[in-house]
């Protein structure tokens, strides 16, 4: 995907979020560290421009909820920052790449600490397949079939694929 493709995908997903959640008044965007944070902010900007809504944005680091702690080096990227009480909210989790689904599962566990959300939806820029858990996205920028060895890199400049050097 090029930078323009990414921009258009953000716009489209913002519209989809607004369409599904009439009014947006209970919606909270939560960007997963690190790849989802920028995208969540861009979605919030777009929603503000297009719908005039001021959607709160939080950031979530799932390091402490991962199921591979002790199997591989796991470190938090930054402290979680969720100021709103999520009880009754519609939380839209935002991440750059959806792969095995384990990160999202960890995120769902983490979210529970901030209140009992009414609904949790998932927005990802890229769905690269290879799910290991029954997790599915609600909003997708692009479906990108990949092999397990490939790496997907998402940024404002676009999405590219590369060879995995080591895991």
């Amino acid at each position: 995907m090029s930078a323009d493709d990414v921009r258009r995908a953000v716009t489209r997903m913002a519209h989809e979020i607004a369409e599904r959640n009439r009014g947006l008044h209970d919606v909270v965007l939560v960007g997963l560290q690190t790849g989802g944070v920028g995208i969540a902010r861009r979605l919030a900007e777009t929603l503000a421009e297009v719908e005039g809504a001021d959607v709160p944005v939080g950031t979530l680091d799932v390091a402490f909820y991962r199921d591979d702690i002790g199997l591989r080096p796991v470190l938090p990227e930054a402290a979680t920052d969720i100021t709103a009480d999520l009880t009754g909210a519609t939380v839209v989790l935002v991440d750059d790449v959806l792969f095995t689904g384990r990160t999202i599962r960890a995120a769902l566990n983490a979210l529970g600490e901030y209140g009992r959300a009414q609904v949790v939806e998932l927005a990802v820029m890229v769905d690269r397949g290879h799910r290991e858990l029954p997790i599915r996205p609600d909003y997708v920028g692009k479906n990108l079939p990949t092999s397990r060895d490939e790496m997907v890199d998402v940024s404002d400049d676009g999405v590219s694929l590369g060879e995995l050097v080591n895991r």
Partner: protein
Amino acid sequence: MSHFPAHLLSMDDLDADAIGEVLRVADSFAEVGRRANPKVPALRGRTVATLFFEDSTRTRMSFETAAKRMSADVLSFSAGSSSVKKGESLRDTIETIQAIGMDAVIIRHSSSGVPARVAEWVDHCAVVNAGDGWHQHPTQALLDLYTVRQSLGGGQEGTDRFDGLRVTIVGDIRHSRVARSQITAYAALGAEVTLVAPATLLPPSLDGWPIAAVSHDLDAVLGATDVISLLRLQAERGSGAYVPTMREYSAGYALTARRALQLPPEAIILHPGPMVRGVEIASEVAELPSARITDQVGNGVAVRMAVLFLLLGQGSLDGAAA
């Protein structure tokens, strides 16, 4: 990311990068501590033992809280308990604990070097030094660094501001494991450390110590201090014999209200506790906003969570244990 050591026995085990990592990860755990339910599953299924041969309710509780907030199972053995009775050797106790299966053991002992020896006897178990004799108390130094960094603005900027920071450590340095850890810790981040003590309370040799200066005159250094760290006279370790009287010690080395006024306005006051008000610190000085003693205690849990997480959470898929 630098490789975190297998055990935390001494501040010498951590370089500047590793220290920075502890502080950064502690930020995340500080956020956990602010939640209504301050718990994460990060160390679920792991077992952590505290083995305190020296009484210290505060430090032990701080470590146990840290472990429990990460969902680890905690076993505590303390000096008075039957499992650590006189006659049962340290080695036997460790072997028993190992047989039960520990991922980490946190040790405090009145003899220097015990955690180092235990680390040689255990397998697949991280050893954390919670204070050994006069030698080291690394998590205390780390939480002091965290507290200072917080005051300096936090984050990487806060860590960078240690470079050239003027730190003064006052008191019984000779018998202090906190001082030894602090000196290494501050120096590792580029701070300039000055020691202030009567000559008899300095170590016999300061050869190779990363300090900028030594002084016997507290008043002379107060004006040029950004952080002042006060140590307690350790009566139980015999410090009293090294000065003629407590009164004479306090006259020369206590942070009185008058002395506190000589500190620069932005200076921070630290004390590892427990304080002996009136001896090394005046009561009213302990209550000043620049005295971060309560913060130190609060920060202790987050910093200890970070240490345990870095020791136990950094395994690799090829099976090599952290």
